[in-house]
């Protein structure tokens, strides 16, 4: 089934000066770590179910 996708329609992204706080950097790393763990778990489950 073909769904219509909406094109990214912005003139710019971000702002200057663009500096992350230490807390924001920690949050990003935490999210990525947790996301990778979820992906690994899902892959393992998928392999077990095959």
């Amino acid at each position: 089934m073909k769904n219509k996708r909406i094109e990214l329609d912005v003139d710019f992204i971000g702002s200057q000066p663009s500096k992350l706080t230490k807390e924001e950097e920690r949050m990003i790393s935490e999210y990525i770590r947790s996301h990778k763990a979820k992906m690994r778990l899902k892959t393992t489950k998928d392999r077990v179910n095959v």
Partner: protein
Amino acid sequence: MKKLVNQGIDIEIDELTNSIKNVISGDSFSTDITRITKADLKAVTKKNDWQFDWKLELKYPERDVFKLTIVNNQTIIQGLISLEVKSDHVFMNLVESAPFNKGKTKIYSGVPGNLVAFACKLSFQRGHEGNIAFISKTQLIDHYVETLGAVHFGGRLMIIDTNAALKLINRYFTNII
């Protein structure tokens, strides 16, 4: 890239890939993304209606600035992106379409999408599994969720994770995968 198909990623392409489209004629033009030089930025000034100070981005040694151009027309910049490769992701500092590609009177569509997809590709190339982080304005969070598959996870932070990155790369760079 057969592996992606085997993982069951369901994508749909609504534009010609790795290209931008003239909004009036509907013609598509293949694009290149290359690292920018100081000389490229001569005309990229606030006076010429660019929003950001791109010369300032070049002063940060940890950041890489790239330009999107039409193939065989390297002198006309269609858009710019500033990226920083971090320890576990690529941070997208800035993206900007050229002044003539902004607003309702833009000449080409697809510029920001191409640039973001390029950032995702770079993230894979650097071993960060496509993960991209960026800061969003509050009123644009929903738009990024819908168009980029980005996740908002607090404050002004957004992430494009592996699956969303694969979809964007497939959408914009299918002809090279």
